[in-house]
């Protein structure tokens, strides 16, 4: 797929909006973006890359912990007993958006050495956990019985079935889960950073730029960075997903 036309269309619409003075034109933002990249922002003195890395690290921490739990838990949903034990409770927690956890988590982590940091990582955890858990458990629970039967006919016990059938079959679900989980975690960190002072981070940066008097080119630069990083994470994992022939078949 050629992505250039879509890109040009986007720039064109942007120029249209800037023509009516709604937002600054792309080239102004591009210059601000470059300045932010090289010299850093006017208030905090940090480059946009530093802000990005700070946000990214928090996402990796929160999402990493989420995956450490969602992968084994999602896979074990293959056992009907485990499923009936966990599923109803998780279905009640799942619709609560990560943002709704913000107040509670700031209170909960108040006594920790770096309360904001812990609270933010926790919010990312919430954001990453549920989508990845759902993607993984969907695959695990739908492991075709034919494959299980094959393993049984050659004498496999439950452990071997889990290891040699359920887990490899669920691998595309794990990749999808990681991809979607990172995406939601990424959105959650930005939101969490906007609410509490964190000193560094893209969400915090955007908020500060707003508070010092609506520095729109800086705000848009921050947003662009969020979009670019989110896009890159998604694109890399999509490439990995494409390598599994059976996930394409099952979705047809």
């Amino acid at each position: 797929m050629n992505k250039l036309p879509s890109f040009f269309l986007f720039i064109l619409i942007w120029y249209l909006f800037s023509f009516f003075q709604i937002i600054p034109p792309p080239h102004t933002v591009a210059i601000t973006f470059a300045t932010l990249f090289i010299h850093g922002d006017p208030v905090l003195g940090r480059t946009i890359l530093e802000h990005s890395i700070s946000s990214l690290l928090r996402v990796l921490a929160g999402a990493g912990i989420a995956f450490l739990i969602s992968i084994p838990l999602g896979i074990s949903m293959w056992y009907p007993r485990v499923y009936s034990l966990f599923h109803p409770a998780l279905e009640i927690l799942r619709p609560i958006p990560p943002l709704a956890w913000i107040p509670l988590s700031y209170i909960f982590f108040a006594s920790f050495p770096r309360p904001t940091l812990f609270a933010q990582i926790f919010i990312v955890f919430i954001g990453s956990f549920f989508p990845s858990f759902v993607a993984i458990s969907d695959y695990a629970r739908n492991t075709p019985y034919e494959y299980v039967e094959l393993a049984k006919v050659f004498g496999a016990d439950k452990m071997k079935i889990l290891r040699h059938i359920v887990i490899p079959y669920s691998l595309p679900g794990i990749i999808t889960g990681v991809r979607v989980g990172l995406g939601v975690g990424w959105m959650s960190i930005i939101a969490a950073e906007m609410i509490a002072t964190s000193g560094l981070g893209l969400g915090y940066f955007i908020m500060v730029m707003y508070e010092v008097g609506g520095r729109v080119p800086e705000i848009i630069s921050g947003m662009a960075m969020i979009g670019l990083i989110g896009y890159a994470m998604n694109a890399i994992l999509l490439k990995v997903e494409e390598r599994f022939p059976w996930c394409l078949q099952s979705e047809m």
Partner: protein
Amino acid sequence: MVLTVRNVRKSYGQLEVLDSISFEVEEGNFACIVGESGCGKTTLLKIIAGIEKADEGDILYNGKPIRNEDIGYVFQDDRLLPWRNAIENVSFALEMRGIKNSDKAERYLELVGLKGFERYYPHQLSGGMRQRVGICRALAVNPKILLMDEPFASLDAQTRNRMQTELLRIWDKDRKTVIFVTHSIDEAVFLADEIVVLSKRPAKVIDVVRIDMERPRDRTDERFIEYRRRVLKHLSS
């Protein structure tokens, strides 16, 4: 050494599938089970393999309940794991049984004429090749009894005939006990030492036909045609 199927009954809910099936297969014999579609052949084979429970009856091998490690199974569909290539699909069975692989998987692939295709994934193989990998997988665990569920049903007539000849060639090497399900009478008469003919559902054994012809069999031979007629008469009545 003998495989005994004794009074096997099976229903799925209200649907009576197997109605007291009994027959025996001598060690080293090639038995075919024929019966029309939906009569319960796959069900019977799964019961023999122990992956489906009979409501009543026993499966005995030398008078003792049959054990999982006695059995190799070829499914009606090829049932290869899409995340494993040909050789890994063969070694899957060895791994499940805890048998050391060494070069078994490779040797058996060569035996069925798949040398050079070891690293191909199922979606890169033709239907006939996939079936051969499935057969290989069952042979590799060196079972005492080989259960085969219409392994050639999805192949074109020419490939099918070639595969039948190849199967007999492989079977002739160590003469395992084979139970081969098919609904092709021609295939059964070509392959079998004896044909177990099942009735419509609920399936009963109508007849066991011994085929006393030397191999390779000539499909145009009069005796061949006579055997076919005899089995056909049972099935169409």
